[in-house]
Every structure is written in C-alpha cells, then in structure tokens.
C-alpha cells in the first residue's frame, strides 16, 4: 500500500480494518471487551459527543474490535461503511427504521426468510409501516407496487428457500426511478459470490451468523451502505436531509455526503434501539471472515456434487438450484452469480409426509436444526419450521411445498455427504412401502 488499485478480495478478507495493535504489537485483532473508553480531558469528551472528533465512547455505539469487523465487511462488499448489529434481523430493522416510519411503505420480494416476512407482514404493520410483497421475477409487479409513500425496495440475493435469483440491476433501476434505495439481504451469497453494490443495490445486510461467521457459533448481523444513493436528490428522506433534533440538529446528508445513512443509523438506531453486536461476537466473526474465500469455494463445490447426486435420484421430484437448467432463474444466475449459487438449496421428496420425516430422521451427518451457512451440513423442513407462520398461498408464492427439504451444505468430504443422503433416501423409500 498504496498501489494502483485497492487490494483484492482475499487480501481484504485478512487485512481490511486491522493492523498490528500500536499499543502491544499484537498481530491478530485484539478483543476489546470493555463497555467504555476513558476520555483524555473534558474537552476531548465534549468533542467526541459532539462529533468534532472520531473515536469510541460506549460500546453500544462503537467498539474497536467491532469496528474492525464493520470496516472489513464494508471493504469486502465494496461499501463506504457498515454497522454491526445483534443479528441479521436487527440489521434489517435498523435499515428500515433509519429511513421509514409510520405511513411509510416498502416493496419486498415474496421470497424471503420467514423472520423477515414476519417483521414486514406483521410486526412493522403495527408501527404503521406497510409492505407489499411481489413475486421477485415479476418486474412489472415491482413497478406496480410502488406508491408515493414507498421508502424502500427489498429482496434477497437468493430467495429463501427457493433460490429465486434477484435481478438486482433491473430491480435497482425500478427503485431508483422512484427515488428510493434497493436493500439486498446477501446472506446466502456473501460478497464472495456476488457484490450487490456493483449491480446497482444501495444497501446490503447480512445475517453474519451464517457464512460470514461460518462456524455456527455466534449470532450477528451487518448493515452495509454503498454510499452511492443520493438522499438529497431523491427528496424523500427528511430523516437524512433535514435537521434532526435528537442529535444537535444535525443534517446527516451535509455532515457526510456518502455516510449520511450510517451516521443516522448509528447515532439514532444503535443509540436508541440498542441492537448492537458484542465485541466478542465481532471477534469470532472476524476469525470466520479471514477464511471466507476458502470456505465459500468449498461450500459451492460440495453443493454442486450434492445437487448432482440428488438431481439424478428417483426419490427426488425436484432440486431447486439455479445452476440446474430446470431452475426458472438459470439464465439469470449464470449472469449474476458466475462463481456459483451458494450451498443452501431445497429439494422435494417423492412421496408423502411420513417419508419426509423418515428421511430427516435417518440422516446421520446432516444436523437437523434451524440455521444455514455452518461449516457442518444442515437440514430442515421449512413448512413446519422457518416458514411455519406463512399460509399455504404465501408458502406457494415463496416456492415452498409441504414436502420441501432445505439443505445447507457444509465443508465435510462430499462423498460422505452423498453417502448420508443416499442412506436417508433409502429409508424414505422404505417408509413409503409401509
């Protein structure tokens, strides 16, 4: 540093935001488990509170370890900055609460993680924020759903669990034509598979619990801002372009031309809602991020082998993986996800419900639990777990059938995974003969 271009992804995954500790020489990122930070003087304290200086005051607002994670995920996404949150759900809530309020409207993909669907369909409604859900492949539906009150357009890079590929360039253009940003949940893809900002998205969030952490140990989230959306030009976001009485009458868009959104999200959202990330969690996620490129490559390789096995098995009615020509978004995936479509996908078993139960219970290597993106392989039945609050119509709109099984392919030897699935499919077949 400096060179003629910024460092590449694998380098950023190890170094962005971190340097040897100037106080101790520690090479790995130190874990700063402290709530607060001593002021040098009264003047220093006042200037930190008044944003005349940058620095840490209280770990709900910022923390040195957490800041390394924030800078690193922002670097990997190609963003201007990030805020670490208590969970992916907290990141989604923070994004919405920063620019929307009672009377606001959101247009969202119908193919969402069940928790996100709950937040939008039920919980935010109670606070006066309405959401219209649209089928992600129907671009006309995105356009038709926009209202004067719309403040956000939202979808998942790969919809859960059907892996609908979000046409980010088209949906971003629709959002921008209406003067609102596009928020993308990139949990399933991670920046290794796709960088939504390069395709036109404005905001990205992750459940860092999943692939970013990668080891199934902590719950956390990250909200990343591209810095590219022009809030002033839009004219729809007084939260960012007019004085905020709650923080020194600050006009966030003037304070930071490219960081207005994150300033308000931190100065209001973390301060008042308080869904911050523990520094310990940030430290653990950083261990995961360092190997993200290596792990994602292996996740995708393993997923391809498992998909290939399942697609040829007589007990399997359908495999929903966009790299298969049978997937409705196959062509879009080739264009937007050339490195692969991740390692979370669903398939439909032949047969009745009892056979599905027999399949899951016969698995020995796959763990039956509610998570994805672990280094270990996982399995779940969405209709009875992650998406259980959705009615049949909503389930169908999200591409989920009563016999749909979701897999998250880990880093085990792929031959062992295939052997485990083969045995479980045999058990399911036997259950059908009883």
């Amino acid at each position: 540093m400096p060179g003629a271009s910024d460092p590449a992804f694998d380098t950023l995954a190890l170094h962005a935001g971190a340097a040897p500790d100037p106080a101790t020489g520690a090479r790995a990122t130190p874990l700063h488990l402290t709530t607060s930070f001593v002021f040098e003087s009264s003047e220093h304290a006042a200037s930190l509170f008044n944003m005349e200086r940058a620095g840490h005051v209280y770990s709900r607002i910022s923390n040195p370890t957490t800041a390394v994670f924030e800078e690193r995920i922002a670097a990997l996404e190609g963003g201007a900055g990030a805020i670490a949150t208590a969970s992916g759900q907290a990141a989604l809530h923070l994004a919405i609460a920063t620019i929307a309020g009672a009377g606001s409207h959101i247009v969202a993909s119908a193919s969402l993680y069940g928790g996100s669907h709950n937040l939008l369909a039920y919980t935010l409604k109670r606070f006066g924020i309405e959401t219209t859900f649209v089928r992600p492949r129907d671009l006309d539906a995105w356009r038709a759903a926009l209202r004067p009150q719309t403040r956000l357009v939202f979808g998942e890079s790969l919809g859960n669990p059907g892996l609908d590929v979000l046409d980010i360039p088209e949906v971003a253009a629709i959002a921008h034509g209406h003067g609102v940003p596009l928020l993308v949940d990139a949990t399933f893809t991670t920046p290794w598979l796709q960088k939504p900002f390069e395709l036109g998205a404005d905001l990205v969030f992750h459940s860092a619990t999943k692939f970013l952490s990668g080891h199934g140990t902590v719950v956390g989230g990250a909200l990343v801002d591209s810095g590219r959306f022009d809030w002033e030009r839009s004219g729809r976001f007084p939260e960012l372009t007019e004085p905020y009485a709650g923080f020194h009458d600050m006009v966030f868009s003037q304070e930071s031309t490219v960081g207005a959104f994150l300033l308000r999200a931190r100065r209001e959202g973390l301060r008042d809602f308080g869904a911050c990330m523990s520094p310990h969690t940030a430290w653990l996620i950083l261990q995961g991020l360092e190997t993200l490129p290596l792990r994602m490559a292996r996740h995708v390789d393993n997923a391809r082998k498992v998909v290939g096995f399942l697609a040829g098995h007589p007990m399997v009615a359908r495999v929903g993986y966009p790299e298969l020509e049978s997937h409705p978004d196959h062509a879009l995936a080739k264009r937007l996800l050339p490195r692969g479509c991740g390692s979370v996908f669903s398939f439909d078993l032949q047969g009745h419900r009892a056979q599905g139960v027999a399949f899951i219970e016969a698995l020995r290597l796959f763990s039956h639990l509610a998570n994805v993106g672990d280094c270990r392989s996982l399995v779940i039945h969405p209709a009875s777990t992650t998406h259980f609050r959705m009615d049949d119509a909503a389930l169908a709109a999200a591409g989920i059938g009563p016999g749909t099984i979701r897999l998250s392919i880990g880093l085990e030897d792929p031959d062992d995974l295939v052997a485990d699935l083969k045995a479980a499919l045999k058990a399911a077949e036997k259950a059908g003969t009883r």
Partner: protein
Amino acid sequence: MRFALDDGTALFAYTGGKPWTPGRPTVVFAHGALHDHSVWTLLARWYAHHGHAVLAVDLPGHGRSDGPVPDSVEAMAGRLLALLDAAGAAEVRLVGHSMGALVALEMAARAPQRAAALVLLGMAYPMKVSPALLATAAEDPGRAIAMVNAFSHSGMAAKPSYPGPGTWLHGANAALLHRMQAAAPGNLFAHDFRLCDAYARGLEAAAAVRCPARLIAGIHDVMTPRRATAEIAGALRAEVVDIAAGHALMQEAPDAVLNALRQVIPALRPPGDAP
C-alpha cells in the same frame, strides 16, 4: 448554507453545525479535486464549537455549489473571494487540501489583507499530474478514480476512521469521488486534475502572502509527496509538519491534523462557553 453571489450563482458552505455568524473570526476550508466539504466536517465542527465561524465550501461546480467549474486555480480563488464577500467574511484563516491548497494559496496572494493564516495540507508545488493519469482521467475516469483512490490511502486500517468508526475509508472516498463525478456536467475529475497540473503561479503567489503559513504533509503521501513540499514551503517561510498518513490526511489522521492546525489556528474559547 448557500450564499448568493453577485453573478446570480450560489455557493454552498457547511458551517460546522452552527449558524453562520458574520464578524466572528472565520476558518475557511477548501477541498481537493472531485471532493466536497464533507472531507472537513470533523475539523469544521471542532472549530465551529471552539469560537470560530466556519465556511467549509463546496468549490464552484462541486457538490451543492452552482457551476460553472472555473477553468483555472486563479479563477477558482476569485470565486472563493466572491463567496467571502457574499458571506461578509472580512478576514479569514485559510485551510486547503490538495487542489484546495492551491486555491487557498492563490486566494491568500490575491487578497493578502484578508488572510490571517494559511495552512496547506497534501500540498506539492508544482502539483504536476502524470501524463498517464491525465490521459486515463480523460479517457476512462472510472479507472482513474480507482487509481487515485488507491494512491490516496497509506493503509487498510487507519483509526479511528472518518467520520467515525465503521467507515471503510477506501470505499467512502471512492463513493464520494463517484458521486461528485456523476453529479457534474462533463468530466469533473479530468478538469480538476488539469487545473492542478496547469497552475504555475505558486512561487509568485507565495511571495505575495503576508500571513503565517504552515504545511501539513503525509509522510506516506504518494499523490503530493513530502519531498515536493520543500520549494513552496521555503517560499512561504512555512514549517512543514509531518503526519503518519497518506494523501487522505484528514481521514487517516484526523486528530493529528487537528493538533497541527491548532498550533496555527488555536481555539478561541473552551467548549461549553456561550458564543
């Protein structure tokens, strides 16, 4: 706020989170190529809350200020003087970064009676831009922006980051450069770099400056290298303060820059005192 000029255009200046108060000792901040006032906001807020009035300008044709973009550093300085007239700022302390340092120098020379102090950051004279970069800026500004963004930063972990923790400086600067370029008619990036390259009045201007001057240099700066400050520092009889940073001094080392600035432009009152 926006200040209406006699020619019918208006220029924007960020006032540091305080209302503009003509008559108070004033610090003027001038940004570099393809930037806007937001590269100064921490410093601007500090001075505004320590007894000064502040004008962190968006130079003509940049950010929130009307165009056209002047076609020389000299013309840019003329417009900045017009802004001071419109704002009623008689005497000012001038702080400039990179292209803005050239503008501040030229302004201090054109109106020496109005300049009470001159601080130049990321300064080199002559501020020659390599022909290859000028050509790239003209033909492929996106690629040139990526190059300049990489050249501007000395590392990947400047702390405590700017304007606060969680900001990825490379990404924030790239976003700002792209925002400025997208909002301007024509190729503002190439235009600004040509202005820097063409400015030839530096030593003449330095001879006309009457106020105390200081240079603040990043020891890792490869855009305006430390070694290229000597001649202009000598002409200004200015001390050069070295800071461990690259060209993006205010972002990579905001506290060190403030400390260096305070030696030339001290606080006028402790925090908490009524203005």
